[in-house]
């Protein structure tokens, strides 16, 4: 792999970003098993504890779907379709298996399309519930234990509680480091640009957790040594909200206008890194609670507060905090077409974030750069509007 030395963290991230999966391919060649997963719901702690490399799968926004449509309907989430298309075309031929967490219909309903078409040696559908009450936590623990058993059977090695506890520690540390890197975006101008950050986020989800932590530390050291640039007082500070945005195309569209992307609420970004797993006597308990109760994703139904305003705070309160802490001037809500979980909350998010002080531009688009020009016009017009 690329040596992570002082001063080359960003270069390493860039390489892992442009050659996505290259580290997994190397490790596979050296005998490690590689398990792909979709969405922020992939329990990486358990995979790390099992001694396999978890890699979050991404698509390629610049690549047209050419083979996947023969197996999967076009009414499926464009992101899921794109990743599936890459998998069918062999871009992920280093995978020993996959875990599909039950996030949404587009994943749940295509489980068999994936598993039967790809025919990987290991396959698991992790049946994550949509609600968070006590019976759901108990159930989540059960299905995590089933998952652990299948991994043990696949690797032929027991996954001890100690190994899980150690993995929890390693991933918590990784999240803490990433949050520290996010802190460097609070200054004006931010020490790290939005597209640099995206490359780090993408790189980080494709390599072993210790390497990911080393990468983040190297990037942090590098950008801290930068000479602070003069702030452009006119440049707007933008937050990007959405699910899996894993390419710099949209971010470059924002930053090429002179705006700063300073924060995100993306499933590849802060959604992944803001919540730790509590160290619990039964380590599975902490993992169940983190993925079910702490993660802020639209497929987890939250509604225990007595008032609607209270419920909105439960669901979106973190975004209000981001607006204040990162001094956000405007937010872009970027949703993929055919996405029921996000699509149904657009009016609620929009009005909530706007009440928090940041005007919102809502964009619905494909997972593809084919429509980038028109997206760019909207972004530019939005920035001209809030100028």
């Amino acid at each position, binding site marked *: 792999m690329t040596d992570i030395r002082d001063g080359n963290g960003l270069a390493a991230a860039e390489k892992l970003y442009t050659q996505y999966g290259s580290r997994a391919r190397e490790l596979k060649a050296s005998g490690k098993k590689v398990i792909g997963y979709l969405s922020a719901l992939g329990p990486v702690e358990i995979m790390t504890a099992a001694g396999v490399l978890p890699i979050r799968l991404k698509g390629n926004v610049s690549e047209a779907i050419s083979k996947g449509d023969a197996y999967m309907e076009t009414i499926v989430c464009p992101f899921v379709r794109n990743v599936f298309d890459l998998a069918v075309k062999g871009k992920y031929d280093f995978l020993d298996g996959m875990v599909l967490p039950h996030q949404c219909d587009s994943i749940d309903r295509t489980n068999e399309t994936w598993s039967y078409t790809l025919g990987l040696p290991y396959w698991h559908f992790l049946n994550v519930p949509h609600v968070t009450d006590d019976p759901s936590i108990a159930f989540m623990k059960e299905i995590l234990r089933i998952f652990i058993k299948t991994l043990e059977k696949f690797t032929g090695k027991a996954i001890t509680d100690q190994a899980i506890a150690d993995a929890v520690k390693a991933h918590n540390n990784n999240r803490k480091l990433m949050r520290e890197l996010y802190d460097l975006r609070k200054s004006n101008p931010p020490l790290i640009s939005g597209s640099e950050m995206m490359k780090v986020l993408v790189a980080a989800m494709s390599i072993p957790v210790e390497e990911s932590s080393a990468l983040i530390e190297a990037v942090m050291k590098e950008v801290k040594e930068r000479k602070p640039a003069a702030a452009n007082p006119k440049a707007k500070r933008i937050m990007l909200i959405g699910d899996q945005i894993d390419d710099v195309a949209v971010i470059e569209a924002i930053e090429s206008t002179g705006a700063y992307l300073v924060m995100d609420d993306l499933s590849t970004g802060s959604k992944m890194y803001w919540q730790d797993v509590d160290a619990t006597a039964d380590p599975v308990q902490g993992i169940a609670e983190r993925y079910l109760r702490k993660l802020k994703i639209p497929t987890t139904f939250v509604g225990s507060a007595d008032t609607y305003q209270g419920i909105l705070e439960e669901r979106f309160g973190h975004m209000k905090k981001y607006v204040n802490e990162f001094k956000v001037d405007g937010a872009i809500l970027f949703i993929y077409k055919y996405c029921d979980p996000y699509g149904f909350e657009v009016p609620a998010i929009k009005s909530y974030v706007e009440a928090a002080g940041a005007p919102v531009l809502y964009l619905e688009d494909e997972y593809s750069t084919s*429509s980038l*020009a*028109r997206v760019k*016009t*909207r972004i*530019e*017009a939005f920035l*001209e*509007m809030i100028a």
Partner: protein
Amino acid sequence: MDYFAGVDIGSTMTKVVIMSDRIEVSLIGPTGPEHRKLANRVMEEALNKARLTFEDLTYIVATGYGRINVPFADRQITEITCHAKGLHSLLPSVKTVVDIGGQDSKGIKIVNGKVMNFVMNDKCAAGTGRFLEIIADSLGVPLEKIGEISLTAQKIAAVSSTCTVFAEQEIISRLASGEPIANLLAGIHDAVATRVYSLVKKLNVEADIAVTGGGAKNIGLVKALESKFGQALLVPPEPLITGALGAALMGKDIFAKYMAEGQKPTRSVNKLEEATFFE
């Protein structure tokens, strides 16, 4: 005298406005496949008409979807901002703009001459000029006539499909079964107006409302929109040039701001290239 130019490269039409303290010249020509050459050509023609040289221009702003393909422009600004600016200068009472272009349609909410909110549809042809063009073509009626013909309809023939491909098939089969062309055209205009209305409605529409773009030149479409909005709509004298006019006005503002700060604006290094009309 300072002269400011606005160049609006739309999907089907390219528009140029040159102004001083008044509009010196405005010009409209079709957009071809090669934006760069075309921008040069239309600009040259406009300069000739105004008896000016390129060097006389103080600041040039490009807008429209081809705005990045105007090498000699000093600045690019989106058509949303420029439309609002241009329209506000012509019709200051307007709070909502409905722009129906060749490949897209949009709604802009204006407060105090500034963009307050906007919506755009460019994902499907329905609700744009392209849709009308396709239907006019399959009915064999010249595009510029369809609006007037639609007003002679006995009744509006409801068109159930808003998808262009489906609608075209539906129209042809209805025509074959004896539905008068006027009724079908009324139905088509109604369908486009419905799409545009549902798009613009997202803006919390306030009067006065103006229509711009190629769609504003179609009386049938304007009438259909009026019935959806439930009020009369304003149409500027030349509804195609509001974007280019706004771009020129933006250039004027930018220049004035620089001057007020005692600075000179940075200009594009590119000049007008020689363009030939014969190729």
